[in-house]
């Protein structure tokens, strides 16, 4: 029982990070019907941005709250700028092209970033700066609640609340929802759609930036291909929850993290990665629209 609770906590903690990344996939999909394959590599660049900023200002080995804030800021800004550039240079020129063209471009951008990363950052793994000290804060019923878990959960919850506020309480959020329902009509109602799309990329990638710092904190080894598998799992989480649905991405992320943790704990760590694809296959066969996604009935 004690073991189970510990795994539960770890799973939720891992799942929150998946959720943060999954949100980026789902938001861009919601607005452009594009699976942004470059998202996972934007996340990778975020981790490296935090790494380089830390060594620039001498924060490699001084864990603490201020380090956390600096790294988060560095990563979020880097991810936003990169995503803006990708949107502007690679996706916007294709706005009127068939969806497949832009999808293939996304794969191209993803590969570009991976090899760019290997060329510029170097292919060998680097040690991510120490963000926080991982102390046992409290022990409840034999379960150790550590700093990392609390930090991950706290930051994720804050991010979700901020996101929720933006989407439901601000004019940008209203415009985002309008654009995701019908871009053309939104434009005719005075919404500057290009700006809203750029903003969506900024929000989604900032969340990926946050995710990259949290991952770096928990698993402090980063390399230019770190985004591939992690991003793929986050993508599966988004599909599981129903791509395009924001609560779906969160739910999908948590389920993904929990099931991964449980599989490793009770079966074998060999199945860790197989699980994600197993889930993907099952969901595509039995409920392709995802848990919270709306199934669309095509009119003929």
């Amino acid at each position, binding site marked *: 029982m004690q073991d189970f609770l510990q795994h539960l906590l770890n799973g939720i903690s891992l799942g929150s990070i998946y959720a943060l990344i999954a949100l980026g996939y789902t938001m861009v999909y919601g607005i452009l019907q594009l699976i942004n394959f470059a998202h996972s590599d934007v996340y990778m660049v975020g981790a490296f941005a935090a790494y380089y900023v830390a060594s620039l200002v001498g924060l490699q080995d001084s864990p603490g709250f201020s380090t956390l804030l600096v790294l988060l800021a560095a990563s979020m800004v880097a991810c936003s700028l990169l995503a803006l550039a990708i949107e502007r240079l690679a996706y916007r020129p294709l706005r009127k092209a068939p969806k497949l063209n832009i999808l293939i471009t996304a794969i191209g951008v993803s590969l570009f970033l991976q090899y760019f990363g290997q060329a510029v950052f170097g292919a060998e793994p680097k040690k991510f700066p120490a963000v926080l000290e991982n102390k046992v804060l409290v022990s409840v019923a034999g379960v150790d609640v550590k700093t990392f878990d609390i930090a991950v959960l706290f930051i994720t919850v804050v991010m979700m609340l901020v996101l929720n*506020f*933006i989407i439901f*309480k*601000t*004019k*940008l959020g*209203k*415009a985002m*929802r*309008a654009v995701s*329902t*019908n871009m*053309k*009509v*939104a*434009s*005719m*109602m*005075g*919404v*500057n*759609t290009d700006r809203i799309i750029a903003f969506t990329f900024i929000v989604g990638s900032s969340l990926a930036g946050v995710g990259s710092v949290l991952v770096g904190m928990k698993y402090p080894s980063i390399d230019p291909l770190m985004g591939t598998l992690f991003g793929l799992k986050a993508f599966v989480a988004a599909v599981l929850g129903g791509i395009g649905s924001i609560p779906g991405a969160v739910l999908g992320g948590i389920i993904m993290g929990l099931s991964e943790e449980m599989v490793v704990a009770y079966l074998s760590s060999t199945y860790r990665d197989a699980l994600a694809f197993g889930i993907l296959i099952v969901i595509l066969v039995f409920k392709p629209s995802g848990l919270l996604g709306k199934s669309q009935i095509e009119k003929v």
Partner: protein
Amino acid sequence: MKLLDVRSITMQFGGLKAVDSLSFHIKKGELMGLIGPNGAGKTTVFNMLTGVYKPTLGEIHFNGQAIQGRKPFEISRLGMTRTFQNIRLFKEISVLENVMIGATQHQKYSMLDAALITADYSQAEKALREKSLELLSIFGLESKAYDEAGSLPYGEQRELEIVRALGTQPQLICLDEPAAGMNHQETHSLMETIAKIRKDFNLTVLLIEHDMKLVMGICERIVVLDHGVKIEEGTPSVIQNSPKVIEAYLGVEEVH
């Protein structure tokens, strides 16, 4: 004063001229009708006016400013808005927010204000909410403000389209078949509402409509299109007695 001045616009799709050097103008405060048989090019004209299509040739002046080829959101911000022949609401969003979206372009607070939840932000959101509810009350839709737009019955969805367009604070509103699918009674009350909002909001109205009774009843001037060409223009009585119009609608009488 000419609010809208359309100068020989042509829209060519490949080999097909959907609209062929069409010219007309609307004076400020006028209620003008644009009629014509199916496929005459009426909706194409609306699409050119609102920036969905860029005219192949010709110019469109709105308030003295050339607007052809501008983006739809820019034209909307200049004060021209529209409704759609086939309803295009933001279906998954609440009725109230459908109206609010049109008005967000006029909201002045910055994202920093929103982030800090400043008084500016709260007041702007509150004012917009109240104003949108007031607009909804024109059609008595305020009690359904928090329903999903897609859940409204058909007639109310049509009305909501008009309210949403009013949210953008237009000078000119282009109504694309607002009475389509409505029964006699509903059409009649719609006519009254159009007259009322025109007066209350000081609007200029361009109306596409199939319902001849509606058009003849409220329009001051009518332009008739057929195969993309203007075949007649004038007051309702001129249009009703024009042989060209009768021919376009009913065909030529065969003489034996």
